């Protein structure tokens, strides 16, 4: 792999959805974060918030590094979304399924990232969704109505295997999009 372009995967989503947790679950180096005091407790009770990015890494055996970026969640930092996901392998959107605005957030983020790059692989993980919850079907349908067919999974990003499920889905989507001769390469 030539070294002229950074290889990265981006995690995005509203505050408290688990971006920092997800990166920490798979990063080989302790993740760097840019968290500061949250002065807007009315909107979200979390004491801190990411204002620039979270940064983690996968250090592969052949020396390649895959950067893992977490974006700030709030819309006022949307300029970071574009900067960070430019040229990335794909975007993982994390949502908190227990919030009242989850479905709205989903559509808002999906639209925003589609505008940034319509062809970029996009995987959605929704947390705090119990097994009887069929709202995910509605979320998928809401996306479908906007012409977006993207994976929407119920996950718990505190579990490493759930984060891996999201990453694996991203990899499968990328592999499925490759022209067929590449498949034969390995």
């Amino acid at each position, binding site marked *: 792999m030539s070294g002229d372009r950074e290889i990265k995967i981006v995690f995005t989503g509203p505050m408290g959805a688990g971006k920092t947790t997800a990166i920490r679950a798979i990063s080989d180096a302790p993740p760097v974060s840019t968290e500061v005091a949250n002065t807007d407790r009315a909107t979200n009770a979390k004491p801190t918030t990411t204002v620039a990015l979270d940064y983690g890494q996968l250090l*592969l055996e052949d020396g390649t590094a895959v950067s893992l970026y977490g974006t700030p969640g709030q819309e006022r930092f949307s300029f970071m979304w574009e900067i960070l996901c430019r040229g990335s392998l794909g975007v993982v959107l994390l949502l908190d399924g227990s919030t009242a605005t989850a479905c709205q957030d989903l559509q808002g983020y999906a639209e925003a990232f589609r505008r940034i790059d319509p*062809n970029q692989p996009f995987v959605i993980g929704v947390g705090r969704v119990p097994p009887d919850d069929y709202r995910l*079907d509605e979320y998928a349908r809401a996306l479908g109505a906007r012409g977006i067919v993207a994976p929407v*999974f119920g996950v718990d990003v505190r579990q490493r295997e759930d984060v891996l499920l999201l990453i694996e889905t991203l990899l499968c989507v990328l592999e*499925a999009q490759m022209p067929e001769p590449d498949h034969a*390469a*390995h």
Partner: protein
Amino acid sequence: MQPRPPPSRAVSDPDTAVRPDRRIAVLKPTGVVDERITHALQLMESSIWAFHGTTHVTWRMASVDSADVLVFHEGDTDERIAQWKSQNKPVVEIAVQSRLDSDTPNLLVYPFRATQVLVLLERLETQLTSGLEGLVPDESTLALASTDQDPWTFVEGLRTLRTLQNSEAWLVGREARTPILWVRGDAATYAAEPVTVQAIRRGALNPSRLTLEKGSAPIGGQAPRSGMELSWFTGYFASGHLAPSLTISTSYRMSSWPNFGLIRPSPSQMRVVAALAAAAADLSEIIRRAGVTADEAARTLNALYACGMLVRVSPSEPGSAASAGARRRAASEPRAGLAKLLANVRKHLGLGARS
């Protein structure tokens, strides 16, 4: 890639072998009968005709002497019916009311839906190719005849419920007489004991043994679950061949992804779904692009179909928007070594090789 045939079959893969025609005879009423019987027999004949090209084999109308299957109506005293039954040859009885005491394994109660005829024809084909006809009846044959209802009836039933969207009603699923699951009228949610849920997810529940009837909401300790889980697993384990409503030569695309957080797919299932998401495909294209067996491809397609996530692509459609996007992406970002990179990431995270 040949699927492994089940032990009782001596025949080669039905998907690639030249299919024989099957002959079916319908005994017409000789005297005056209930008008509904006449309508039912007409419906049966027209359904057979309508499914030409859809079923695994072609069914042709024939005389009783040359037929593989005999269709008769209840109350018909034609002696050939008894002859056929004693020889254990496949028969189909058309009735206008349900009878619990019927000894006919294939009973169609009028009014019946065309899909029931389709399901029946496919089941008859299975019975004929597995060589059950002509066997001396013994316990195992009789057992097969009486319980070998199609699992597709259950799966299709769930699909129909989903379209009805009646969230107020509940249906109870009983195995023998014991209620084991409760399905809401819109199939969005179901409830069952944890041990039943485990059985469903393992494929140990046989939906052909279930009866589904109107009932009341569950009370007690059954955990509510997403209806998609029930549809996916019953659809997946129903058969290693495509569902009766799907055909080999049709291209399909996905309308949405299943919730893999709940289903926890195998790598093969993930690849099938990802391949379909990238571009519309028919069965053989799925097998090739996803690098999976015919069995796995068919089962995964069936599961998607059961969940209502599979959409037929008409021949005039150039393909889904997703495939156009994939082509654009591939064209604009030729990325040397991407396949190798992804393989290395897989290895690093312990995800297993792609194929």
